[in-house]
Structure formats: C-alpha cells, structure tokens
C-alpha cells in the first residue's frame, strides 16, 4: 500500500519491524564515539595478535648501550633503562594487558553470573549467605581487595589476574542478582513456572537473556578496569614482574628516570589510557544502544 502512504521519513528506509538486536546494532553504528572506542580496541587486539610481525625480535632483550635514548627514527618511542625499544615493549605489552583483561572478566563472569542468578532467583538462605559474602568483599575498595589478595597469593601475572578477577566477582553478582530479582517478578516467568518448566530452563531461557544487557555493558567497562588495576599493581611492583612487558610495570620502573628521561614513563601511560578509553567509550555506547528506554 505504499502508493497511498505519504512518507515523511528521510529516504526509502525500511520501517518494517526489526528485532531488538538489529535495532541496537543500528543505534550503535550511529554513535560515532562508541565506534571510535571499538576501533581503538580493535587496534589493540590486532597489535596483540600481530606483535611479532610489528616488532620482530625479543622486546625484553637488554641492550645497555642504547639505554635511555630519546625517541629517534630507529626507536620511535625511545628506549628504556635497559636499552629496550619502548615501542616494542608497548606492542608486546598489549598481549599482556589484553590477556589480563580477558582473564579477569572471565573469572568475574563465570563465577559471578551463576552465583548472581542463583542468589536472585532462589532467594532465601542461599541468597542471604551469598549476599553477606558479597557485602564483605565489597566492603573493600576494589583495588585494595586485589592488593590484599596479591599480598597473600604472591606477585606475577597469574596471581594478578586471579586477584583482580576475584575483586570483579562481587560486582557481577550484585548486577546479575538485581536484574534477576526484577525479571523473576515478570509475568512470563510466572507463566513458565505455572506450566511446570524446570528451574534451569527458566534461568537459561528467560532470565539470562534479560540479564545479558547490563552484563555486556559491565564487561566492557570491567575490561578497562582490569587493565587499570593490573597496571596499578604493576606500577607498585607487585603485579606483572619484569622482564615481562606490562605497561604498568614499565611505568613503575620508568619512574626512577622521570627527571632525565621522562619518555620512559610517558608512553606506556598513553597506551594504558587509550586502551581504557576505548573500553569505556564502547561500554557507554553499548549502554545507550541496548537500553530499551532510549528507543527512538
């Protein structure tokens, strides 16, 4: 019946009903800032994957003759106190940071989400106990909790990942639980129960999809947070240990040369900043795109 319709929309845009996912995708595509964030992250992922191609050789091999060189053509970002190319170490550092980000979020997701679902859905004693545990974990500021755990577990990449991951868990539990509580009251859940659907199916089919939205947003933001925390631990000397190139650790060792060779501390920091910025921009964009209230 298009010939009897006067379309005041711009262009021949198809206004047939589309699924909420596609609608969100369109909204996300329109958000240039979020796309820029996504682009930054993509850049990092590519850098991490193509590291050996971008910088052949061992980034951690010392070359004391070239120590503390300012940026030049040979070493675009200069060298650090052991003569290693800062650019090379930043490139390889992306591998470390990304793996930490993924590891940290995985711990949070795979432990936090199920616990949150169970806590929110079943309520009662399980909920009470889990909530008290979560409260206790949340009584410590995140970074401090990670710090404390590192004090117990020891330093290094793996322990840093575990510690920060554990600090993430209560965030996910809270988030998922809150969402589950809301969804649990929805009529379609009641209807499913009335028909005799098993709890596991209800959780997976009905509740989990509704929780996905805040989880996705939180995950993007948590990745940024994970990188920041890991860098913080590295900076203090209790995270990733040298010679592994981690941006925070590089900053930490660069600190001693701040007055003579500030570039050693500057560039890794920029790397951290851009990575975290990317995740934050994307997370924001996801939040705007996926939030059903802001439907156009």
């Amino acid at each position: 019946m298009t010939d009897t319709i006067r379309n005041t929309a711009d262009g021949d845009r198809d206004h047939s009903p589309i699924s909420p996912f596609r609608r969100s995708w369109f909204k996300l595509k329109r958000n240039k800032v979020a796309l820029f964030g996504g682009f930054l992250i993509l850049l990092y992922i590519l850098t991490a994957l193509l590291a050996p191609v971008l910088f052949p050789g061992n980034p951690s091999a010392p070359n004391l003759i070239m120590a503390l060189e300012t940026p030049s053509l040979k070493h675009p970002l200069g060298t650090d106190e052991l003569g290693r190319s800062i650019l090379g170490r930043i490139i390889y550092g992306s591998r470390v940071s990304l793996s930490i980000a993924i590891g940290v979020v995985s711990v949070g997701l795979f432990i936090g989400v199920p616990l949150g679902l169970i806590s929110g859905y079943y309520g009662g004693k399980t909920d009470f106990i889990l909530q008290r545990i979560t409260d206790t974990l949340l009584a410590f500021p995140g970074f401090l909790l990670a710090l404390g755990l590192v004090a117990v577990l020891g330093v290094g990449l793996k322990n840093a990942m575990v510690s920060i991951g554990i600090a993430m868990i209560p965030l996910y539990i809270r988030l998922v639980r809150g969402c589950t509580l809301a969804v649990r009251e929805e009529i379609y859940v009641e209807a499913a129960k009335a028909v005799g659907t098993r709890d596991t199916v209800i959780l997976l089919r009905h509740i989990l999809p509704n929780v996905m939205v805040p989880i996705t947003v939180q995950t993007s933001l948590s990745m940024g947070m994970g990188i920041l925390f890991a860098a913080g631990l590295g900076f203090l000397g209790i995270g990733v240990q040298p010679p592994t190139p981690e941006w925070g650790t590089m900053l930490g060792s660069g600190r001693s040369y701040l007055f003579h060779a500030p570039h050693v501390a500057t560039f890794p920091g920029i790397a951290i900043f851009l990575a975290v910025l990317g995740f934050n921009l994307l997370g924001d964009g996801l939040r705007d795109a996926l939030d059903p209230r802001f439907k156009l």
Partner: protein
Amino acid sequence: MFQYVIKRLLSIIPVLFGISLLLFFMLRALPGDPAQVLAGQMATPEDIEHIRHQLGLDKPVYIQYAVFLGQLAKFDLGRSARTQNPVIQEIWARLPNTILLAVVAITLACLFGIPAGIISATRPYTFLDYLVTAAALFGISMPVFWLGLMLVIVFSVILPWLPAGGTGSWKHVILPSITLTAFVVAFIARMTRSSMLEVLSQDYTTTARSKGLKEKVVVIKHALKNALIPIITVVGLQFGMLLGGAVLTETVFAWPGVGRLIVDSILARDYPVIQGTILIFGLIYTLVNLMVDVIYAFVDPRIRYD
C-alpha cells in the same frame, strides 16, 4: 528515621565479622608457619614462640579466631614485623595524611563535578556539554599514577613550580590532591549529568514548568534535589576508590600516608601491617557507606518512613 538508622547500623555487623574473618583466613592462607610470618624475618625462635603462644596458634581454629576478635576489640593489631612497633601506632601516625588527601579530593570533586554535570545536563548536545562529557571520559580512563607522573613532569621538571613529593607545605598538597581528584571529579560529573538528564525528563519537571516557575528554580529546587539521590550514593562509593587510588598517589608523591604503608609492607612481607591496614580501610569504607545511607534518608523522603 531512627529505625532506619538502627537497621543500617545492625546490617554492618555481619560485614564487620566478614571482614575480620576474611583477614583472619588470609593470614593463614599463606604458605608456611603463621607465627613465623607474623614475627617476620628478623625474629628469633623465642619471638616466634611468644607470638605463637600469644595468638594461641597452637590451639584450635575457633579459639584462634576468638583470640583474634578479642585483640581487635582492644584495638590490638599486633606488631609490625619490620619495625616491631604496634601496628596501630604505625597506622595512626599516617592516617591523617591519607584522610587529608581523600577529603580534599572528594571536596574538590564535588565542587567541580556536580556543577559541571548540571551545566552539561541543562545544555545537552551543545559545545559545553561535549566538552564536559569528553573531559569526564578522559578523566575516568586515565591511570591515576600516570597522571601523577605527568603532573610531576610538567610542574616539577619543566616548570619548577611545585615540589615532586614529600610533605611540608601546602604546596606539597596540590599535586597529589589534583591527581586523586581527577578520576573522582570525572565520575561525579558523569553521574550528575546522567542523573540530571533522567530527572529533567520526568513528568514532575514538566508539571513544575507548567506552573510558570523560573527555569533556575525548576533545575535547582525540583530537579537537583531528586538527582542528588543517586549522586550521593556514588560519592560514597567514590570515597572507596579514593582510598584505593591513594595507594598509588602516595607512592608517586612519596606521601607519608597509609597507602604507602600498605605497599611498603607488601614488598617487605610485613603481614601484621598488611592485615591491619586493610582492616582499617575496610572499616573506614564501611562507615563512609553507612553515613551515605543515612544522608540518603535525609534527602529522599520515600526511604525515611518505610
């Protein structure tokens, strides 16, 4: 209202127990003999035995925990393995410095962040709004310690205006405070903006306008009061981030606070101090959040009476 406060007070009791339990088991999760760990590397066998006896480490776990709680009640956090001073003393000497930074930071953050958020929300999609939003995004993405180092480079190396660390004068406070403030002010500005936007699109804002009230009145009397509710909660949470950020900032600026104490202790494996400082931080954070909950009730009448 009174009931509400009492309820909140009661609810932190399990948390306090939880904290103490966590720390109790943390120590015992370490490899090796806890008594040795507590005594430190300089201890003699007699010292180790003394500690073992004092803490009842030869007795069953629940008795140990009881002893631990008893000590906590007396504010006895043991002795530093490094300096042999009471942990409480070590903390007490440094706590005011950290609190100073934290209070300055949170005050500056609210002072700048909230108005920035309001301006941004009342002029959406204008240049000012984009500026504030961008600045805020940058602020929350920046690593605290890197910002500190950059500030040192600019203000202590290139322009030798401010000292790079230590204490002594008000000049020493500036750079660490700004560093700490950066993340928090960005976060608060963002929260204020989104909270205000939400409130300004509510029906009651339209009602207020329909009565012919001036826009300023609508924004401040009608909108802001509602928007503050989530902002207050966030400010409380941010205080926690401040305590965490303080660790990094104090390290950068060699600021003699509890944050640096934690780091030094971790590097030196001084477990009594680690345990004690984390306990204190947890306690402070819990109390701050309790205060926030109470303030919350003052602002939101819906919470007060239910």
